[in-house]
């Protein structure tokens, strides 16, 4: 059972310098996740500001279990998840399919939920500051045009942009996204990843994304975390390092890294 941090052994000098300057937001210390019994080896990992981390692996590889444990929706079997501060602001974007399609709610209202934190809901109506933040987030996510439409009537790509706007509205320091591009076409998917990378690099957020799209994830992510519960393997490092890993290549073979024009 192995957890190999490839980044620690092979990162370039520049990347190491970037890592040092970036501050740690969440650290997994010997974290063991699972349902009654461990499904992966213990994981040591630090999630830092300004980095886009893509979590990859096959169906049932333990991605979602690790993710849920990271954000506190599940308890670790052993080890721990250490937050930089107890009041660390986290934004979570569920899969589009997790929100009920019959929910009678406008996109704007859904984005406003991103402004609710802790016991802050004990106010019957949202404040002007919240509404302004919501409007800004919708504009930034290019979702203003359909902000007043019922969420249920939006296309999958539009729904994803609304959830992305909600993530921005939280003013979170750490953004966690569960398969955000699951129902998108390749162009929309590339744009979504570009937006996430910009969020990490320009707004200096830590972004963690679960992905099935190896090529696009490898193109835009700063780090990859590959999980394989069947082979009891965990690999963490830069995309080049993970894609070159022997065990990874045994499962996936050569991965074509998507190259896309810089401007969307």
């Amino acid at each position: 059972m192995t957890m190999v941090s490839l980044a620690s052994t092979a990162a370039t000098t520049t990347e190491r310098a970037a890592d040092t300057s970036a501050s740690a937001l969440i650290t997994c210390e010997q974290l063991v996740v699972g349902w009654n019994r461990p499904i992966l080896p213990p994981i040591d990992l630090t999630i830092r500001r300004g980095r886009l981390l893509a979590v990859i692996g096959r169906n049932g590889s333990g991605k979602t279990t690790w993710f849920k444990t990271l954000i506190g929706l599940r308890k670790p079997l052993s080890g721990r998840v250490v937050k930089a501060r107890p009041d660390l602001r986290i934004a979570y974007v569920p899969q589009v399919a997790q929100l009920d399609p019959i929910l009678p709610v406008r996109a704007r209202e859904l984005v406003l939920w991103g402004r609710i934190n802790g016991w802050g809901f004990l106010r019957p109506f949202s404040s002007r500051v919240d509404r302004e933040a919501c409007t800004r987030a919708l504009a930034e996510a290019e979702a203003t045009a359909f902000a007043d439409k019922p969420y249920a009537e939006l296309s999958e790509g539009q729904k994803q942009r609304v959830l992305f706007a909600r993530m921005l509205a939280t003013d979170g320091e750490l953004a966690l996204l569960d398969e955000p591009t699951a129902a998108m076409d390749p162009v929309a998917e590339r744009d979504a990843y570009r937006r996430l990378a910009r969020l990490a690099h320009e707004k200096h957020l830590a972004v963690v994304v679960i992905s099935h799209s190896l090529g696009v994830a490898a193109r835009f992510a700063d780090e990859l975390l590959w999980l394989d519960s069947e082979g009891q393997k965990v690999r963490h490092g830069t995309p080049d390092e993970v894609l070159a890993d022997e065990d990874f290549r045994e499962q996936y073979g050569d991965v074509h890294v998507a190259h896309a024009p810089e401007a969307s």
Partner: protein
Amino acid sequence: MDPTGAGGMTWKDFFDAFDLFKDPIYCAAAAGFVLGFLGVYVLLRRMVFVSAAVTQSAGLGVALAFYSAIHLGFAFDPIYGAIGLSLITTTLLLADPQPRLGITRESVLGLAFALSGGAAVVVGAKIAQEANQISAILFGTAVLVRAEDLRAVLIVGALVTVIHFWAFRGLAFATFDPGAARVQRLPVTALSAVILLSIGLMVGVSARALGALPVFAFSTLPATAALLVSRRRMRLTFLLAALGGAVAGVGGYLLAFFKELPVGASQTVVAALLVPVALGARGMISLFRLGLRARA
């Protein structure tokens, strides 16, 4: 409007005896309003069966109160039986038996529903002298409402309304996107408990006053109608469902009065009629929007 019903009752008769009827009408309006509001949670959380099980439990609670008074010599107000059993069922539903017992919440619901329904009939058979009361509880055949039952409905209804108005944003967020709400540090478990306890309490007091059948109807049908009409504004959906519940309560009572029909069944029928009315309204709204688009 023809003031004379088929049963010969007129609006004059109604207003002449309004002092007699005002309590059940206020009670039906208040219970319909609050249960209609809560019904949106019931439907959107796919908890219709929860409402059915809690309502059945309330019926059993009342039957047990009569049984206790007659056969055990221990008398307590049936409303406490209704509230007690409703809350026990609600508490059972709050627990997730899957990790420990390997059975789903639906199994617990099935057990609560079947056991409560069966036990209410069995207990009812042992208190034949109170058969009318049991029938009133299960099907809402009572024309009048006791003052203490009205008071309980008004107090619990007001409490639930204030809490839900004040915490609406949190309750909605935690209910419809619990994962994100938990990450944003909302007390999701507590908010979920607030909703279930609101349903348990309101069903308990309303079932004693109005009967299980109309209570179940109020907690599902007005919300169905509201969801058909309002698809983009959540607050409006809740408000329409609440108003629909109140209309069903009062309208059903009036229908029963003028046509000399059983009250609870009439309230249930009026609540059900809201659904085709909403379907018609939805069709009209769609046509209106198509017209606007064509003109643009």
